[in-house]
């Protein structure tokens, strides 16, 4: 693949950084999806949480209408998927964050907790997917 093939990934990443910077500098909040969504489920910061999640859902629809519909392939079986959902939900709440809060904002802030969490979830994600790939 040439470098140009990665331009959408880079451009999408810039938008993620812009979204996180906006929320940080204007509202003073961390754009961590598991945190925002988890607090919303618990009824905390319900107003801003709800509109943020609404925007998150509408974003891909906007891209669909202006650019191209995102193509998704879900290879995981239903039992795999439901187990994965349980683990991701429980784990992100126990570990206080996910790819966005720890992986982007926490790393940008140089937080030791976020750097440690990111190293651990990356290592576990790589190990799990690689092992599954080898077994299948």
């Amino acid at each position: 693949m040439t470098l140009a093939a990665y331009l959408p990934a880079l451009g999408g990443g810039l938008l993620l950084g812009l979204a996180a910077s906006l929320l940080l500098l204007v509202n003073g909040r961390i754009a961590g999806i598991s945190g925002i969504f988890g607090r919303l489920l618990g009824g905390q910061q319900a107003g801003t949480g709800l509109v943020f999640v609404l925007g998150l859902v509408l974003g891909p629809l906007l891209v669909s209408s202006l650019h191209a519909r995102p193509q998704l392939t879900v290879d995981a079986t239903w039992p795999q998927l439901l187990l994965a959902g349980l683990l991701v939900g429980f784990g992100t709440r126990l570990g206080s964050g996910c790819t966005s809060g720890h992986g982007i904002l926490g790393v940008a802030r140089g937080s030791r907790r976020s750097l440690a969490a990111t190293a651990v979830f990356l290592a576990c994600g790589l190990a799990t997917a690689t092992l599954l790939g080898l077994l299948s």
Partner: protein
Amino acid sequence: MNPWRLVVALLAGLLFGSGLALSGMLDPARVLGFLDLASGHWDPSLLFVLGGALVVALPAVQLQRRLARPLLDTEFHLPPTAPVDRSLLLGAALFGLGWGLAGLCPGPALAGLGLGIAKVNGFVAAMIVGMVLHDRGLARRETPVPRA
């Protein structure tokens, strides 16, 4: 509350969802293409997404440190500095396990809800159960005093 905060939260959500869609990271197959090192056709896209996000977020954090308060609030609401503890590491490990199993994490899963894909919706339902199990069950057992 300043109503403009709602507008900013909506705009941030829109940008985040659009960024995920544009980056290709809504697709679990692309994410697994990065996480599966032995596939024979490794896809480094996720690193470009993370890199792009950090290019913007790093200077924003530097700017934030020079500001007394955010534009629309009286103070920054940042997680307090705390030591790396067992909950953090165990939580991150469980999250990584789930992420590697399906190729979905909270952002792309929620952002994919509007696309009407049954398996993404099912993942989100299970994720909600996992979050509620943690917040209502474990948190209560650890802290007998109810949270405000």
